[in-house]
C-alpha cells in the first residue's frame, strides 16, 4: 500500500497550553523562561511576543527591553513531552499509528486512513481545524515520507498535501533546515553558501559524505523515500505473546499441562475478543539449565478454542523434557488470521461434511503428529492421463471445479507406478491371452478395450497407452496397457496399472 504520513507542527505548544489555562493571557505577549548560567533565557514565546521580535533563546532582560510589559512564566521541564503525548493519544482517532516528534510535533502514519474521512484534503483539514479550534496553533502536511511531511509542515509555502511521488520536487526549494539536521551541519552548509536543498542535492554522495557525514545523506534519503524511517509509536501494535513465569520449576507433565492451559486461556480470550483465530503457535520452555525447548502447532483453519488448541499441544507434551525444571513458559501466536464467527447450526445432520468443526480439529491433531503432507484429499482434474486426472486439494474448503467422470471406468486401486508384466498376445491390437504378474499366471477370459489414452504433448512426450480391462479365470479384474504401437523392430511393452472392484 502507498505509505502516507502526516506531520503536525505546534508552533506555540506550551504557550497555547497556558493560554488555555489562563484566558486573560490571550491578549498579552508572554514568554516562558528558565535560568541558565545565571541569567534568564526565554524557552518559548507566544505569537504576540514573537510579533514584537522576541524569540526563544533570547535573554529575558533583552526581551524586557523591547516589551516592558512582558508577562513571564516559569519554564516547566517535561511539559512539552506530556502535552505531545496527550495530543498524540487524542489523534489515535485518526489513525492507530501515532508517534511523538520532539520537541513540538506529531507524526501520523495515515496509510489507508484518509478515504474514511472523504479524501486527504478533508482528512488533514479536519485534523488541523479541530486542533486549532481547541486553541493549539497547529500546522500540518501530508506526504509519502516522514521527512517530506515534516519539512512541508514547517517550511512549506503553499500546498500542505504533497501528491504521491511529488516529495522530491517540493523539497528542492526548501532550506537545508527542513531536513532535520544538526546545527553543526546546518552552519557548515550555510558557510558554504548552500541556501536550499536544490543547491546540494545533485552533488555526488561520496563528496557529501566526506564533507558533512552520513547524517545528511540519511536525512536526505529519508525525506525522498529511499530509506525507511520507523516511527516510535505511542501505542505499539502488541504481538500475540503470553508469558508464564513459574515460582517453582515445573518438572511434571501435569505441571506443563496446567501451564499450557493457562497460557492458552489468556491468549484465546484476547483472540476471541478481537475476532481472530490462531493458525500457528510456538511454545517455548526455558529450562533451569539455560536451554530453551520449543514446540509448535498449526491448525487448518483459524481457531481460538482453548480445548482444541490444548489437545494439539497435548500430543507434543511427551517431547518436552523438563530436565531440572522449567522456569518460564512463553506462547507466541506467530500466524493469526481472522476467524469466522461460529455459526449456530439449526439442526445437526449426521456429520456436517467437510465443514464440520470436529473434523477440522481431528485433522489438526493428525497433522501435528504425522505431518500435514500425509493427509490428502483429491479433486478431479480435466485430464485423461490417469495420473493427472486427480489433484490434491489445497484445503478442506477447496471445492471441485469439474465433475467426477463416471463414463470411463477407472480401477479402485491404482499402482503409483505401472509394473511390467509378461504377456502372451496372439493378435496385435487385441488383449493378451494371459499375463504373468508377480510370478502368477492369469488367463484372460473376458476383456474390454482398448481405450487409447494419448500423452498430453504439451506436458510431456512419450508413447501413448492402450488400456484394456481384463478379467481372469477367477473373475479378478485388472487394468493392463500396452505402451506404444507394434513395430517391426521391437515388441511393445505391457504393464499392469490397477485393480478393478
Amino acid at each position, binding site marked *: 500500500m502507498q505509505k502516507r504520513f502526516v506531520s503536525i507542527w505546534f508552533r506555540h505548544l506550551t504557550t497555547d497550553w497556558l493560554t488555555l489555562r489562563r484566558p486573560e493571557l490571550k491578549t498579552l505577549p508572554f514568554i516562558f523562561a528558565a535560568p541558565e548560567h545565571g541569567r534568564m533565557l526565554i524557552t518559548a514565546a507566544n505569537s504576540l511576543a514573537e510579533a514584537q521580535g522576541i524569540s526563544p533563546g533570547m535573554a529575558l532582560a533583552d526581551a524586557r527591553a523591547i516589551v516592558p510589559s512582558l508577562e513571564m512564566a516559569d519554564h516547566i521541564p517535561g511539559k512539552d513531552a506530556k502535552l505531545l503525548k496527550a495530543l498524540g493519544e487524542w489523534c489515535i482517532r485518526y489513525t492507530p499509528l501515532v508517534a511523538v516528534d520532539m520537541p513540538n510535533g506529531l507524526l501520523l502514519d495515515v496509510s489507508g486512513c484518509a478515504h474514511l474521512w472523504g479524501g486527504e484534503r478533508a482528512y488533514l483539514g479536519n485534523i488541523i481545524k479541530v486542533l486549532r479550534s481547541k486553541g493549539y496553533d497547529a500546522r500540518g502536511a501530508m506526504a509519502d515520507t516522514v521527512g517530506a511531511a515534516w519539512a512541508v509542515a514547517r517550511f512549506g509555502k503553499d500546498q500542505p498535501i504533497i501528491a504521491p511521488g511529488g516529495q522530491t520536487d517540493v523539497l528542492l526549494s526548501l532550506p537545508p533546515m527542513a531536513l532535520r539536521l544538526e546545527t553543526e551541519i546546518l552552519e557548515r552548509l550555510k558557510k558554504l553558501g548552500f541556501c536550499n536543498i536544490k543547491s546540494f542535492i545533485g552533488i555526488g554522495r561520496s563528496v557529501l559524505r566526506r564533507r558533512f557525514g552520513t547524517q545528511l545523506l540519511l536525512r536526505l534519503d529519508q525525506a525522498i523515500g529511499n530509506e525507511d524511517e520507523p516511527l516510535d509509536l505511542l501505542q505499539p501494535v502488541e504481538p500475540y505473546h503470553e508469558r508464564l513465569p513459574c515460582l517453582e520449576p515445573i518438572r511434571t507433565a501435569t505441571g506443563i499441562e496446567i501451564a499450557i492451559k493457562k497460557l492458552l486461556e489468556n491468549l484465546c480470550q484476547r483472540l476471541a475478543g478481537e475476532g481472530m483465530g490462531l493458525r500457528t503457535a510456538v511454545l517455548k520452555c526455558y529450562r533451569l539449565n539455560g536451554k530453551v525447548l520449543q514446540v509448535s502447532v498449526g491448525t487448518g483453519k483459524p481457531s481460538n478454542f482453548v480445548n482444541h488448541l490444548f489437545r494439539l499441544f497435548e500430543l507434543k507434551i511427551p517431547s518436552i523434557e523438563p530436565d531440572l525444571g522449567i522456569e518460564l513458559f512463553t506462547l507466541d501466536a506467530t500466524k493469526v488470521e481472522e476467524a469466522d464467527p461460529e455459526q449456530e447450526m439449526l439442526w445437526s445432520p449426521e456429520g456436517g461434511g467437510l465443514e464440520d468443526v*470436529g473434523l477440522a480439529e481431528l485433522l489438526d491433531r493428525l497433522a501435528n503428529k504425522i505431518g500435514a503432507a500425509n493427509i490428502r484429499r483429491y479433486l478431479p482434474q480435466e485430464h485423461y492421463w490417469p495420473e493427472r486426472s486427480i489433484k490434491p486439494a489445497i484445503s478442506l474448503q477447496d471445492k471441485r471445479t469439474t465433475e*467426477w467422470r463416471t463414463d470411463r471406468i477407472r480401477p479402485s486401486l491404482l499402482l503409483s507406478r505401472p509394473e511390467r508384466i509378461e504377456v502372451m498376445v496372439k493378435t496385435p491390437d487385441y488383449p493378451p491371452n494371459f499375463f504373468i504378474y508377480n510370478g502368477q499366471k492369469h488367463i484372460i477370459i473376458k476383456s474390454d478395450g482398448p481405450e487409447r489414452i494419448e500423452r498430453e504433448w504439451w506436458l510431456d512426450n512419450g508413447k501413448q497407452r492402450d488400456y484394456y480391462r481384463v478379467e481372469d479365470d477367477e473373475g479378478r*479384474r485388472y487394468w493392463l496397457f500396452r505402451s506404444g504401437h507394434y513395430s517391426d523392430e521391437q515388441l511393445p511393452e505391457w504393464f499392469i496399472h490397477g485393480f478393478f472392484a
Partner: protein
Amino acid sequence: MQNTRQDIINKLRKDILLMEGFKPPSASGAGSIGLGEIELAFPNGVFPVGAIHEMMCPAPEQLAATSGFIGGILASLMKKGGACLWLSVAGKIFPPAMAVFNMEPDRMIFIDLKREKDVLWAAEEALKCEGLAAVIAELQDISFAESRRLQLAVENSKVTGFILRNDPRKAGATTCVARWQIAHLPGETGDGLPGVGYPRWQVDLLKVRNGNPGSWQIEWAEGRFVQFDKEAAVHEVFERQVG
C-alpha cells in the same frame, strides 16, 4: 411368572443389541443401506451402523473388490453429508473409481501413515469424531484388546468403522460386529456380448454377532446392489441354448 421372566429377558436382549450398535428397524425403512437380503442376516434386519466391521482382503485384487463393496455402502452412509477417512500405510485407492459407486470422492480424506501402530492410533482418534460418516482403516492385524478400544470409541460417537485386514492367517477373535469376505465373481454380459460387464462379488458374512452368517452373490449395476442367483442365471442360459 414364567411369561414375565421371558419378557424381561427379551427386553434385556433388545437393550444389549441397542448398546452393541444394532438399531431396531424403523417403520419407514430409512435404516436400509441397499444391501437387500444381506441386511436380514443382522439382528432386527438392519445393517449396523455405529459399529465396526472387519473385512478380510489378503490380496490387492480382493482389496479392490472390498473397496468397491464399501464404496456402495459408503454412498448411502454419506448421503446426508459427512466425510469419510481412509487410513492406510501405503494407500493405493484411486478416488475417481469411487464416483461409480454414487459417492463424491472429494469427501474422502486419505491419510498415509508410516506404521501400523499409527494407523490404530489415528483410527481410534477418528472414530471418536462425531462429524464423520465412516472410517476405513487398512491393517495387517488387530488384537482383541485393540479392537475393544475401537469399539469403545464408536459406542459414543456412532461412527461406522471398517477394518480391512490383509493378513487373514492371524484372524483371531475381535469385538467387531461382523466379519466379511468379498471375492470377485466372473462378470456376465448376457447374450454373449463382449466385455467384462458389471462388477460381481461373492459376499461371505463369516461372523455376525447375534445374527446368521451366510453367503450371497451380488452385482453393482446401475448405481445399486443387485442380488442375483447364479444357478438361475446358468439355468436360463442353458435353456436358451436348448431352445
